[in-house]
């Protein structure tokens, strides 16, 4: 790597007042033709380009991004990473990603601040207890670390939780995945962009796709705001806008795009050293390294592309947060925002070929795509390069909506859909 980051490069640049750092990725104009084009410069798209170049020896690749890289859901999520999903197919997919996370900073020579601080999922009613215990057993059979904690153990692990039996939805226990945690979301996009750019991938920002050119049943190129670009392999990783891109090729997807909100508080001293998620009352919270509480709210019930979301959704989440953490009652919220998430009927993603040759989709991650970023990129790159899915994403094909072989993960998706 040309400009390897290390303690020595840090000292060297400190001596020159940090004025000589080189740009981390290029800013090229698009070429006339590419071997493969990735539509969408978020974490998943950049990771796809990175692994295409690294593992599949494709060098003539472009990533097209209509805004700036990592400016969509990659920069809007609550940074939670875990792999405690119920079904074998999901366990394989998400734990593959988690294993890549564990070595990602070294792999990219870029500090993604991956922190395995644990993720705890709370149970608030008898059905929660049964479901979460079942999921713990399923996880352990799949080699994923998971333990069941009773109420006292929950309190011991995270003392600020109100475990009083008299609250509206009392804490009856919870599960804990210790290998789970958080990472710095922007750094993930930047690290993959830097790594991909180093291997010759063109990252083209402010370039919006306007049309997909087809010749019969195969793709020939993309109409963009920077002109026509020829290619015979297109990987679409457009999150909330997947259906919009699919419509350009005359495809319909089983997706609905909805606003999902998050918010952060003013920064405070360390108070919560783990991630706590609570599906039943819809409250989840962690603390960023800057000290802000990072709170995830729910999705709106209707299709919208406004990147806003409704006030009542935030209000409901904060009510639940206050009941569970009375200590936060005087915290002030600093910022609130929304991102558009593409939700599949079975709350599982699609990493798949389509019936148009050379057109691939990686979408449907809904409310929980960030955790899968490295795995999603790796498997999508494999699918594009070989025109065949990897065994870890074979179950996540588009055809499952026709065959009925759905991967129902509504229970493990943190946000109720």
């Amino acid at each position: 790597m040309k400009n390897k980051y290390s303690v020595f490069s840090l000292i060297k640049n400190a001596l020159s007042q940090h004025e000589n750092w080189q740009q981390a990725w290029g800013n090229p104009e698009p070429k006339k033709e590419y071997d493969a084009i990735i539509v969408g410069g978020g974490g998943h798209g950049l990771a796809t380009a990175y692994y295409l170049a690294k593992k599949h020896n494709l060098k003539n690749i472009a990533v097209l991004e209509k805004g700036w890289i990592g400016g969509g859901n990659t920069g809007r999520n609550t940074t939670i990473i875990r792999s405690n999903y119920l079904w074998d197919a999901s366990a394989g997919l998400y734990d593959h990603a988690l294993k890549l996370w564990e070595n990602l900073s070294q792999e990219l020579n870029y500090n993604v601040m991956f922190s395995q601080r644990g993720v705890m999922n709370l149970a608030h009613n008898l059905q929660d207890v049964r479901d979460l215990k079942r999921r713990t057993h399923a996880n352990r059979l799949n080699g994923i670390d998971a333990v069941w904690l009773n109420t006292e153990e929950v309190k011991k692990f995270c003392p600020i939780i109100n475990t009083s039996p008299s609250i509206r939805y009392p804490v009856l226990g919870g599960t804990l995945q210790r290998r789970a945690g958080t990472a710095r979301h922007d750094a993930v996009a930047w690290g993959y962009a830097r790594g991909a750019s180093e291997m010759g991938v063109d990252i083209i920002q402010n370039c919006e796709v306007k049309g997909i050119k087809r010749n019969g049943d195969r793709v020939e190129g993309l109409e963009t705001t920077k002109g026509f670009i020829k290619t015979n392999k297109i990987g679409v990783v457009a999150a909330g806008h997947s259906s919009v891109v699919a419509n350009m090729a005359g495809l319909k997807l089983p997706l609905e795009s909805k606003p999902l909100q998050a918010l952060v508080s003013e920064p405070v001293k360390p108070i919560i050293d783990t991630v706590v998620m609570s599906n039943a009352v819809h409250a989840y919270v962690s603390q960023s390294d800057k000290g802000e509480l990072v709170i995830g709210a729910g999705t709106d019930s209707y299709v919208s592309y406004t990147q806003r979301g409704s006030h009542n959704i935030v209000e409901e989440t904060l009510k639940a947060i206050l009941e569970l953490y009375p200590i936060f009652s005087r915290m002030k919220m600093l910022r609130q925002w929304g991102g558009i998430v593409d939700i599949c009927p079975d709350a599982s993603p699609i990493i798949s070929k389509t019936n148009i040759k050379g057109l691939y989709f990686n979408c449907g991650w809904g409310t929980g795509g960030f955790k899968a970023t490295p795995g999603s990129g790796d498997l999508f790159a494999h699918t594009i390069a070989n025109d065949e899915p990897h065994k870890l994403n074979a179950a996540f094909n588009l055809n499952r909506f026709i065959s009925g072989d759905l991967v129902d993960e509504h229970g493990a998706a943190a946000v109720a859909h």
Partner: protein
Amino acid sequence: MFLINCPFCGERDQSEFSSGGEAHVVRPKQPTELSDDEWAEYLFMRKNIKGIQFERWNHVHGCRKWFNVVRDTSNDKILSVYKMGEKPPVNYK
């Protein structure tokens, strides 16, 4: 967040309503004769439009009646409201 003009109760906050998704997805007349592809199309595939969308809403915390709405999903502006069974307005294609 926006206001919806319920054709039965008048203008109310969106949080009183429940979204029923895309409108005019016709239930198959003879379900037993449907192929798997046709079932997938009916059950799962959605236009998921960015722009003008025809959709169903239910005034679930009000009169509990269903009706149709034409809404621009890129800015949440409601362009038209019409009752179930009425023809969709033609000027929003």
